[in-house]
Structures are given as C-alpha cells and as structure tokens.
C-alpha cells in the first residue's frame, strides 16, 4: 500500500491551502489506520506525520500508545521519532508513560551512544515523579560514560529528575562536585549551569563548591560559563559576606577587561544585586586610577543606557533600577539621561525609565518630571483634543501663562508649561491642540497599563513622605484636576482620595482647591460622564464634599446650591447622592448666613426666591422616584436609598423653616438664617489615623469577658415538660464552671436553640412530643350569628371547589392536629376550618406516621 511519507504530507498540505482542514482530516484518518499496522516502518512514518500535525495544533493524544511502540523499535531513526512524539505531546498525566520505564532503562544501558543520548533527551522532557524515582539510578550510572556529551546530557537530565524527585539530590550533589573537575569543558559548563539553577533555591548546599568555582572563574575564557558562574555567585554572596570581598577583585577585573556586553551586564548585575558594591575597597579602573567599585559600575552602566541599541538600553535601565534601590546617590546625577529614555518609543523601556525616575524625585526635579509625564498623557491619541477658539493661536505646546486668581474664573485655561517652572494651570474639557501633533497611530502612551502607571507614579512622587517634595501645593491640586481630565483610565478613586487628603491636611490650599472644585462641578462635559461607578462620578462626589465643607472660605454664591443638585444626580449611586445633598445643605446655610449680614428687602426677596426654587427642586427629586414607583409598579427597585431620602427630607424641613421665618419682610435678618450654619461648624473635622482606635485606652473596670446579664431563667417547664434526663446527665457533669453549666442547660431546653452535636432533642420521638391536650385553649365567643354566616358561605363556595379536595384537606387537617374537641370557633368567611362541631378521633401513632411522609 502506498503510504504517504512526511514529505508527501507536507507537500500535500501546501498544495491544498484552501481546503486545509479537510485534507488534514483525511490524513488523520489515514494515519489512524497506519498506526494500527504491525509494520514498524509504517508506524514510525505515521508517528512522524503526527508530530508534524501536532505542531500545527492538532491533538494527537490518541496515538500515545503507538508512540511508545515506536519508541521500542530497534532501529535508531524510528526510535528517535517515537521519542520526539513523546517529548512533544506527553504530559505529566499521560498513563502510557509507565510502559516506557523499562524501555528507557534499556536504552540508557545500551552500548550505542546515540540511543543513550536520545533516551536522555526524551526523559528530560517527559519526566514524571514516578519515572524520576525509577530511573534516577540508571541515569546516575550513565554519568560515568566515556563520551563527554553523554555525561553532559546525563547531568542536565538528572537535574530535571531531581526537580520531580527531590530525594535524589543527595546522590546528585557529590556527582556534581566530581563533574566540576571533569576534563571536558562542556561537561564542566553543564555542571555549572545545573549548580546555578539549584543554588537559586538552596544556596547553602553549594557554598563548599565556591573555591572551585572561583578557580574556574579565573581560569576560564568561555563566556557562557563565566556568565553562569557570576550568576551563581550572586545567589551565594547574600549568605556568605566574605565571599563578596574575595570576588571584589576578579569581578572588577572582568568588568574592566571584557569586551562582551553580556558578560559585562551580568557582572554589573551581580555586583549590584549581590551587594558586592558594598565592599569598601577601591579598585583600579582601566586607566589605572583608583575609584570606588560602585562608581565603576555606575560609570559602566552609563554605556548601556546611553547606547543607541535598544536592548542595551533596556537592560541598563533594569540594572539602574536595582542600583537605585541600594545606592540612590549614584543614580541621581543621571536624571537627564533617564528623562530622555522616558520618551523612547519602546513601551518596556518607558516603563523601566518611569520606575527609575519616580525614585529620583526631589524638590527640584519633581516639576519637570511631572510636566513631562503629563504632556505624554495629553498628547497621546486617547484624549481627543479640540481646538479652542478663545485662545490665541499657538504654534507649540509651550508658552508661558502664569496662574493667578482671576484666571481661575475665566472661561478656559490652557495647559501650559512655564519656562521658569512656576506652575501648571488646570485645563477644562477642551484642551489646546498642538499643531505639532501628527496623526500617528496609537503610541506607547496609549496603553492603559502605562497610563495607569504614570498616574500612580505622579501621585506617588508628590505625596511621598507626606508631601516632602512639594513646594507649591496649589500646583499639585491643579495637577490632580488635570489628571481627572487627561488620565483616560479609571483612576477616579485614587485621585479623589488624594484631592481630599491634600485639601483636608493643608489649610492654605483649601481656598484654591474649593475654587477648582466649583469649576469642575460646573463643567457639563464632566457631569455627562458621571454615571454611577465611573471614575468621573467619584471625583465629582469628592468635589461636592469639598465644596460643601469649605464653602465658607469663598464669597458665598447661591449658584453653588444649584451646582450641588445637578441634573445628573439621579444617575449616581446612593452614597454619592447623599454626599451631594449634604453638601447642598451646607452651601445653602452658608449662603443664608452670609446674606444675612447685609439684609434688605431685595435680599429678602432673593432669599424667598432661592428657597422656593430649592424646595421645588428637592420635591422633584423626592417625587421623581415615587413617580417611577407608580409607573413601573415595582416599588422595590425604584425606591430612594435610605440615606438619600433622609437627607432630602432634612433639607426640605430646613427650607420650610426658613420660608416660615421669612414669610414677612423684616428689617433685619431672621435669627434662623444666621444660626443655621452652626449645624455644620461646631467642630472642625481633622484627619484621623488608622491606628487611632487602638490608642484609645480601655476604661478601668471594663471586663469584656463577663456575661452582661444573669442567666436566662428556666421558663421551659411552663411550655414543655422537662426532657428525659438520661443522656443529658453526663454532659452536665462534664462541664466545669457553674454558670456555664446553668447556661448550657438553659440553652439546651430552649425551644429554638439549634445544637449540632446535641441529640437530646433528636431523641424525642413523636410519641414523646408534649401532649397537645396540655395546650391551653381559649374560648372565643363571637355570638350566634357567626355560625349561620359560616354555613351560608360554606354552601356557596362549595361549588367552586371539588368535594374531594375539601375532604382531603379536612382529613389532612384532622390528622395533623389531633386536638381535643375544641369549643366552637366560627370565623366568618373562612370555610377551610374543619367542622369542629363533630367530635374528632383521638390521635393514634399509625395515623400520624403516614401523614408525616
């Protein structure tokens, strides 16, 4: 039969590009039949084709057993195909692996070195814990093989096995030591690699090897091995400080002399991470001068991130970040260079530079850094820029515009970078469009992770060590407001927290802050974005709070009240609405108090007008929800949240009181207007630390462990007879404390106390239930009329229900409530009650048990 070989399969695939799936289906079916055949050659070709298809993404696990068969073939080529299939598609859970154990063992012991090598390759890939345990010794035996490449492979394979079978480490460690002295350099190199990997998790074991490794480092010229050795030392030096001193010399030599960038990088990295730069010995650099080792490293690092090659830049920045964590003073003078790296088109480089820069923030550099980052955020494609008509045309993004108080009230303020770095002013929804912005595709600044990092970095730099770096708090508040507009990611929570934090803590900036908040609240674009849960909503909520709390700092304005009851209020969630309303109350009372200072008839009319409009707004809000109630008929959903409705009603009462007080024009302001604001100014709110509660001293004589009241009196004997005391006695005796025993007894007998392990109650069978005869029954006398009515209604309603149903119900009820003959109880209209005039049968257990089913 003509089977397709691998080449044919591939050629066929390429020829059938259009109906690839069908072709592959057909081939899979062919392969299925081929693997069943007994001819080994056929099978192995089939497995070969399967390998290829596996690479294309098709599942080939159904042929696992056949793959193992092929692995057992005596011919090398076929064996290899089988092992390859195993390596590619076997998982840890593949059950046919157990069949392969003996097979691999045979191969490992084979005289043909190639077979050994292919077996080692395969084993390294598919090692499971069982295989590892079984084959460990076999592989260890191979370590003494004559061919060096077998030794090398065996070493690495053993490493893999040890990962699955940790007990083998004892046997492995001395072997590793021997192999370090092996004459063949590649074996030594593998041994070093393995030690390097193992030392990462457990460095103590390999410390004794350090002298030999040191020798190797000094004598070898193989860069790969040197890199591994240096990396190894990085994991050893933290546990052995003297090692650092010894390494100091050779490492600096390497740094000065090597031309391989990778080795240089590894050496510097080790020096930084392993804290070898902490050693205070000077070294001689390439020119022969004596400098500090750390300085040498820093200088060499400059080569990296100033190079044009992006790879070097990236690794340089990574190491710089590490260096900064340990020796910040060395890094500080690199500010300019790193700032340039911030604009790199590569996102990973930018992120690294960002982390370095934010660590470098000081008073002097904060300004420029933040400006650069903000311009990155704004000039990206995420923010849609609109041309602003009222501003003079600008050719570049930089022009000077210093902030002053008047400009805050003007309609639009542009983002500007001042040449003297004085201040950054806040922008509104529209931002000046830079002519230089080309219509480029999305750049790295558009990635949301990057933007989030940038915002967090800006905030972190400014608030570090309680604002140690800030010299101008107004500028900081303006930056935060700008970030609200330009962030493009969901950082509303963070920004609102920071705004609140700085406004509350720093008294001087409150006025500026309130002004900006007022601006933000009157921005209709921002309000339109404020739906519940969005970041704009959170920020606006905080803005409302700040405006309400500190509105007394600004000349009072009746429009504040309108601002704080915006149209979008019903789109926010309950908490936020409540904040808005509370702030509106504060603003209202503040305005009243202010206006009361210069009372006149016009003022009186103004007060009445404002009060009336506010009241109408509030009643709208209150009714809006209740209207929806009526319309949708679903009262559970559309009801006002509790905190909102309560505050609304407070506000309504306050306005009612004011309108009553101002019902007649008066000479001077009513006392009410002057004093209402006292509601909110009695105490100043200060920030409270998280640990404050813990510092409150416990009052003397407070014992939290003693029970509050006496034990609950045993009243159960009125309701139920006491339970059989048989099983409860040991439990009572076992308990220690007197009060505990009493409590427990009381609890046990309490009718609704659910105790999982206590089966006193379960031992009650139905027959032992308290006799219902003992339940006191009260006679209700409703007069003779009731019985007549009842019979009439009964006869009427009998037509609507079947006789059987009523009879069943009666039977059920009779059985369930085996009651003594009750006094005639006639409740009009309720014909479901059993006919109690006839005597009922007494309760019997046979009748009760079937009913309980």
């Amino acid at each position, binding site marked *: 039969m003509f089977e397709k070989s*691998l*080449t044919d399969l*591939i050629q066929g695939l390429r020829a059938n590009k259009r109906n690839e799936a069908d072709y592959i289906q057909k081939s899979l079916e062919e392969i299925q039949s081929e693997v069943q055949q007994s001819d080994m050659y056929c099978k192995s070709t089939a497995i*070969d084709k399967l*390998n*290829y298809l596996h*690479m*294309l*993404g098709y*599942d080939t696990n159904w042929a696992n057993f056949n793959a193992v068969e092929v692995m057992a073939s005596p011919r*090398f*080529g076929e064996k*290899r*195909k089988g092992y*390859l299939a195993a390596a*590619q598609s076997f*998982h*840890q859970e593949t059950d046919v692996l157990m069949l392969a154990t003996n097979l691999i063992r045979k191969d490992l012991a084979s005289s043909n070195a*190639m077979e050994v090598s292919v077996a*080692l*390759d395969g084993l*390294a*890939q598919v090692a499971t814990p069982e295989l590892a345990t079984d084959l460990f010794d076999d592989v260890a035996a191979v370590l003494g093989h004559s061919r060096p*490449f077998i030794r*090398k*492979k065996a070493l*690495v*394979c053993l*490493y*893999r096995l040890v990962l699955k079978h940790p007990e083998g480490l004892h046997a492995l460690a001395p072997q590793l030591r021997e192999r370090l002295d092996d004459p063949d350099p*590649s074996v030594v*190199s*593998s041994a070093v*690699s*393995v030690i390097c*990997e193992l030392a990462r998790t457990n460095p103590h074991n390999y410390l004794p090897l350090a002298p030999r490794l040191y020798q190797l480092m000094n004598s070898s010229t*193989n860069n*790969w091995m040197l*890199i591994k050795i240096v*990396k190894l030392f990085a994991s050893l030096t933290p546990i052995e400080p003297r090692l650092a001193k010894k390494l100091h010399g050779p490492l600096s030599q390497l740094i000065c002399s090597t031309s391989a*960038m*990778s080795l240089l*990088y*590894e050496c510097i*990295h080790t020096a930084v991470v392993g804290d070898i730069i902490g050693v205070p010995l000077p070294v001689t650099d390439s020119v022969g001068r004596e400098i500090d080792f750390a300085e040498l490293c820093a200088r060499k690092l400059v080569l990296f991130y100033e190079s044009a*090659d*992006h*790879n*070097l*830049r*990236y*690794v340089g920045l990574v190491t710089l970040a590490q260096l900064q964590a340990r020796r910040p003073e060395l890094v500080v003078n690199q500010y300019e260079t790193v700032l340039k790296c911030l604009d*790199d*088109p*590569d996102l*990973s*480089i930018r*992120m690294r530079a960002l982390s370095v820069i934010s660590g470098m923030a000081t008073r002097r550099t904060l300004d420029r850094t933040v400006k650069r980052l903000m311009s990155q955020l704004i000039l990206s494609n995420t923010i849609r820029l609109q041309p602003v008509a009222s501003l003079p045309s600008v050719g570049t993004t930089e022009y000077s515009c210093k902030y002053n108080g008047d400009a805050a009230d003007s309609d639009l303020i542009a983002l500007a970078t001042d040449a003297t770095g004085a201040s950054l002013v806040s922008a509104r929804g529209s931002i000046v469009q830079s002519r230089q912005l080309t219509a480029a595709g999305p750049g790295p600044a558009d990635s949301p992770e990057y933007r989030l990092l940038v915002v967090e970095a800006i905030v972190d730099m400014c608030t570090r060590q309680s604002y140690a770096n800030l010299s101008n708090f107004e500028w900081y508040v303006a930056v935060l407001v700008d970030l609200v507009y330009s962030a493009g990611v969901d950082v509303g929570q963070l920004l609102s927290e920071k705004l609140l934090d700085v406004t509350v803590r720093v008294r001087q900036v409150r006025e500026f802050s309130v002004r900006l908040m007022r601006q933000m609240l009157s921005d209709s674009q921002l309000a339109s974005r404020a739906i519940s849960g969005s970041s704009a909503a959170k920020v606006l909520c905080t803005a409302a709070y700040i405006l309400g709390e500190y509105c007394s700092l600004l000349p009072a304005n009746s429009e504040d009240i309108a601002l704080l009851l915006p149209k979008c209020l019903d789109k926010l969630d309950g908490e936020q609405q409540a904040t808005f309303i509370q702030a509106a109350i504060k603003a209202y009372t503040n305005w009243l108090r202010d206006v009361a200072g210069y009372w006149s008839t016009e003022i009186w009319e103004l007060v009445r007008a404002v009060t009336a409009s506010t009241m109408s707004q509030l009643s709208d809000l209150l009714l809006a929800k209740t209207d929806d109630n009526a319309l949708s008929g679903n009262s559970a959903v559309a009801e006002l949240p509790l905190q909102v409705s309560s505050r609304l009603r407070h506000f309504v009462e306050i306005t009612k009181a004011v309108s009553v007080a101002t019902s007649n024009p008066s000479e001077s302001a009513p006392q009410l207007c002057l004093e209402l604001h006292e509601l909110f100014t009695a105490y100043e709110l200060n920030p409270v630390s998280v640990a404050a509660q813990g510092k409150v001293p416990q009052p003397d004589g407070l014992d939290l462990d003693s029970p509050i009241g006496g034990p609950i009196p045993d009243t159960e004997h009125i309701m139920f007879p006491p339970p059989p005391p048989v099983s409860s006695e040991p439990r009572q005796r076992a308990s220690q404390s007197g009060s505990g025993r009493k409590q427990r007894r009381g609890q046990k007998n309490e009718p609704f106390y659910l105790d999982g392990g206590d089966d006193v109650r379960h031992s009650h069978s139905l027959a032992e239930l308290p006799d219902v005869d003992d339940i006191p029954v009260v006679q209700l006398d409703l007069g003779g009329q009731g019985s007549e009515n009842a019979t009439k209604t009964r006869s009427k309603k009998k037509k609507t229900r079947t006789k059987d149903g009523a009879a069943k119900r009666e039977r059920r009820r009779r059985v369930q409530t085996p009651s003594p003959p009750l006094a005639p109880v006639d409740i009009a209209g309720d014909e479901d009650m059993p006919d109690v005039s006839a005597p009922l049968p007494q309760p019997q257990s046979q009748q009760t048990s079937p009913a309980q089913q």
Partner: protein
Amino acid sequence: MIRFILVQNRQGKTRLEKWYSQYSNQERHKLKAEVHRTVASRDQKHQSNFVEFHNHRIVYRRYAGLFFCFCIDTNDNELAYLEGIHLFVEVLDSYHGNVCELDLVFNFYLVYAVLDEMILAGEIQETSRSVILGRLDQLSSLE
C-alpha cells in the same frame, strides 16, 4: 531557565515549538497566539528585543520571515540568550547550507535534533558550533 521556545512565521504559524515547563494543551494554544501578537507587532528599528510577558521575558529575534522566541525567567541574562538564538540559527545554517523556512518545514525532526543538542531541560548546554555539527553528522550517518 528557558520556559519554552517558539519559532513562528509572520502569519503566526508555528514552525517549531519546544516546551520546557508544564503547560496544558489549551494553555499552549493561548500562549502561542499571545506570543505571536506581542512579537509580530514590534518595530525592529526602534524597539528592543526583549518583551515583558506575564511574569517572564521573551527574547526574540527576527530572521527573514521567522521569529525565534525564547521565553526566559526575569533574572536571566537576556543578552546571553540573544546570542544563544543567533548560535542556533548559525548551526542550522551551516547544517542545511543557507537554510530557509522550507527547510525547517520539511526537515523539522532534524531541527529538533539540533535543538536538543544545544539546549536540554531549559538550559543551554553546548555552545561550541563545531561540536554540535560533528554530532549531527554522526546522527545522520546512523539513519
């Protein structure tokens, strides 16, 4: 240590894959697609050859229409692995004589053999080109 090695062409087809860590089949598919997305969209001239990927790094290099990607741990020396990729490609080149993508497709098991000689269990174990080529000659003589 190397987590996995992928050789993909520009359309995202995998020409070679070698996994040195445990990944289930669905994970492998997802990873392959993600790697392709990440690597194919990068600009050679302005961007470095190292990408952060989940919590590892991908070191990749583009040769003609093929991307050779090594996924390594974060504390590994990326420059060294970059050189490793180059060594691998050089060996393939000397073995096939001016290797092109078709060679890799038709002789994929040989490519795996070369890879196994160079890298075992996630570590580079042989860095001498002559030694690897010598061994490959031995292997082919056995076939």
